[in-house]
């Protein structure tokens, strides 16, 4: 059971739910950036929700199947085509041996998840099949897919069937403008009161530098760091700190200019002050943002963050229940 890569797309990688436990030596979680969509794709084809899938960004790959398979595409609206004939997203469909799966142009969102019944079968490295490209680790040979790669898949799960569809109220939409909830903290006290206000007032634009490591934003007013005598070892710019660990979702602002939100292939640490952290419930939404999309940052406290987390969890639970 295998998939031949005829065209790789822009940056198609193997991902599951990630590789916790090694961040202290610089190996990040990795895994699908939109966990909700990844889980949905798996459940639609009868897999466990954390099986390995293909994550395609902005542009789909072209794939040829060496055996019959059951496939589902979720996440970004990247319409699948089977030998040229359109197929629905967010539902499972059969693929016959020798058929080619390709994709139409991206309609909304940024990352699509392509699940195959039985899962993508690459070696498990440090507990996960996810690709960490910066460290050439995991996934398919530690890198994004390339032309002529042959990717193995597992055997289809019993009970996997075509025509399964996600209840309409559970399929998310991906607006071009959205709000991201932020818990201020970490080095938030280092920016001036005025910048602490403007950061939440301004509308920010996703920059072209937006990938699995982090999303950069621009076009808001520059943030001003409070003057101080820099501590020993911190570096000379007021936005510098003694190199420290970076939380996932943390927002750093090198030179006060362009906020960067770290995502699942995060660099694990460095010397830029972080002014807060995007809450866990909103991380999937970042994954579906395109360059030039707009975001406003909305301040929440821990109670608000935990409430949002509970809502996210209940959405995933309803998804799981509806597809089991």
């Amino acid at each position, binding site marked *: 059971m295998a998939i031949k890569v005829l065209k790789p797309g822009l940056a198609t990688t193997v991902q599951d739910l990630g590789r*916790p*436990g090694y*961040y*202290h*030596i*610089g*190996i990040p979680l990795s895994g699908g950036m939109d966990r909700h969509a990844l889980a949905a794709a798996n459940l639609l084809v009868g897999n466990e929700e954390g099986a390995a899938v293909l994550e395609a960004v902005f542009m789909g790959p072209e794939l040829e199947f060496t055996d019959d398979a059951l496939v589902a595409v979720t996440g970004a609206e990247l319409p699948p085509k089977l030998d040229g004939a359109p197929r629905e997203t967010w539902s499972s469909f059969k693929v016959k041996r020798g058929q080619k799966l390709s994709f139409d142009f991206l309609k909304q969102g940024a990352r699509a998840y392509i699940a195959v019944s039985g899962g993508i079968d690459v070696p498990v*490295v440090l507990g996960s099949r996810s690709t*960490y490209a*910066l*460290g*050439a*680790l995991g996934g398919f040979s*530690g890198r994004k897919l390339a032309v002529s790669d042959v990717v193995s898949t597992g055997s289809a799960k019993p009970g996997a069937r075509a025509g399964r569809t996600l209840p309409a109220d559970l399929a998310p939409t991906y607006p071009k403008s959205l709000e991201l909830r932020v*818990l201020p*903290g*970490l080095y938030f006290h280092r920016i001036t009161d005025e910048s602490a206000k403007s950061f939440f007032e301004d509308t920010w634009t996703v920059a072209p530098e937006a990938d699995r490591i982090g999303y950069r934003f621009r076009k808001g007013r520059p943030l001003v760091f409070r003057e101080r005598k820099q*501590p*020993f*070892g*911190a*570096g*000379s710019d007021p936005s510098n*700190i*003694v*190199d*420290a*660990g970076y*939380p*996932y*979702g*943390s927002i750093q602002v090198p030179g006060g200019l362009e906020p960067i939100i770290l995502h699942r292939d995060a*660099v*694990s*640490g*460095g*010397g830029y002050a*972080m002014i807060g*952290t*995007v*809450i*866990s*419930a909103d991380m999937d939404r970042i994954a579906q943002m395109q360059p030039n999309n707009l975001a406003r940052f909305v301040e929440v406290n*821990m109670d608000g*963050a*935990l409430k949002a*987390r509970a809502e996210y*969890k209940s959405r995933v639970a309803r998804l799981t229940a509806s597809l089991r």
Partner: protein
Amino acid sequence: MQTRFSFGGDEHIFAEVDESMSLEAFFKSLFITNAVRDAKIKGVTEICPANASYQVKFDPDQIKPDDLLTELKRLDRAAEKSEPVIKTRIFEIPVLYNDPWTHETLMRFRERHQDPNCTDIEYAARINNLDGIDGFIKAHSSAPWFVSMVGFVAGLPFLYQMVERQRQIQAPKYLRPRTDTPKLTVGHGGCFGCIYSVRGAGGYQMFGITPMPIYDPSQKISYLRDFMCLFRPGDIVKWKPIDRAAYDAAVVDVDAGRFAPVIRDVSFSLTEFNRDIDAYNRKLEGVLHGH
């Protein structure tokens, strides 16, 4: 030193032991993170010591953020009362200083450097009042360094030299980061040394290169078969200056699978270290050479 705690969203607690870098701050961060690991707190998924801070990642569905914060504060207070002693490892890492590969790279990015008219090592020697390249190599390699953090990318050690603050080598990062750095470059930025575990972008000054791989995701290198990253926070590194012939021989040995790095177990006491730094470092070097 009063640790400052802050939540990093709903899944992290960030603890700044001190704003400034010091061996005391690093040691406390290492000590507390060891204690957190030993405490096996339910819901904790990552424990990351850093230079003068640390962070803990957790699942708030398993432990309430405030409960974990209370627990970390308790461990923080306990750490202050404990004897600052750790069991760790000391490594001897061969370095070809002023090598042709970092030289070629630094020449390509000269316009991004503070002083385009000299090399990184000459620049660092001058601004640290050291006697030319030889004086720099002596200062860099005579006293050992703590691995004070591992990260940025997989397996990359940040290193902090085990000398008084006034003897610390300091050098700014490049004005604009390079888009290329040879793999295994020995670099320096601010008061931190590093070894680039993979080839890639970087902003640290480049002083030399080691023939000894420190990260191998394919786990083919003999001494990285057990684990793909060589370093852990708290390890001690002593540089050994080597010449081109020794470098070439080491590369051949690594490729043939017979390179055996010098690694010894050692116990480190911060109190004893502070009593007489040079004597303590000589003792550490003795351990390295089997005395």
